[in-house]
C-alpha cells in the first residue's frame, strides 16, 4: 500500500504511542523489581532482629 507525503508524521505518531506504552510497562516492571528487593531486605532485617531478641 502506498502512503502519501505525510506518512512520516503518521509513523512518528504511532512510534510515540508504542514507546509511551513500552516505557510505562518497563517502569512498572522496574518498580516491581525494586519493591521485591526492598521486601527481601526488610525480611532479612526482621529475621535478624528476631534472632537478636531470642538470644537476649
Amino acid at each position: 500500500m502506498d502512503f502519501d507525503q505525510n506518512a512520516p508524521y503518521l509513523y512518528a505518531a504511532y512510534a510515540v504511542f508504542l514507546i509511551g506504552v513500552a516505557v510505562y510497562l518497563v517502569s512498572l516492571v522496574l518498580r516491581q523489581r525494586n519493591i521485591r528487593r526492598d521486601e527481601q531486605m526488610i525480611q532479612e532485617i526482621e529475621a535478624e532482629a528476631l534472632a537478636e531478641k531470642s538470644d537476649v
Partner: protein
Amino acid sequence: MFVVALFMVFFIAPRGDLRSGGDAQRIFYFHLSAAWLGFGAWIVTAVCSIRYLKTRDLKFDRIAVSSAEIGVVFLAMVLLTGMLWGRPTWNTWWTWDFKLTLSVLQFLLYVAYLMLRSGIDEPDRRARFSAVYGIVGVLTVPLNFLVSRVLNSIHPAVFGPSVNGSAQGQSGVAPEMIPILIFSLLAFSLVYVYFVRSRVALQERMDTLTARRAELMSQ
C-alpha cells in the same frame, strides 16, 4: 488487540483528504482513544477520591493515584501526537488555541497531582489532600469537551454539534471509520485496565512495605 488495531489503522482505515492531513489523518484513531482515556482516567480518579472521602478506605486512594499516573501517560501521548498531526494539517506544530491550552493545563494538573502526593509522607493526610485535588481537577474534563463546541477553536469537535466556524481539519467521522475507532478505543481501554490493575497492586505492596519499614524503625 493493540497490534490488530495498528494493522487496521495502517491497512484498512480510509485515507483522509488533504484538508485533514492525508495519511496523517490516521493518527486520529489512537489520538482520540488516548484522549478519551486521559479524560476517563481523571473521572476515575475523581470518583475514587469521592469514595475515599466517604469511606476513608485507602483502596480507593490507590486506584485514584494509579488512574492519574496512567492519565499522565495518555495525555502526554495525546499532546505529542496532536502536534504531529497538527503540522501537516494546520501547518504549525503548536498554537495557543483554547482547546490545546486547556489540554496542556490538564496535563500539568495531572503532574501537579502526582507532585502533591510525593510531597506528603503521612498516608491518610496525603490521600485526603489529593482526593480534594482530584475532585477539583476533574472540572477540566467537561471544560475541555465543551471548549471546541462553544468557543471558536482550531481543533475540530469530532462528535456532536459545534458552533465552531474556524476549525481546521475534517471533523466528521465517516461510517467506515467507526469500527476502527471502536476497536482502537477497546484496545486502549484494555491497556488502561491492565495498567491500573498492575499499578494498584504495586501501590498496595509499596504501602505495606512503608508500614513495615516504619514499624521496624520504631522498634
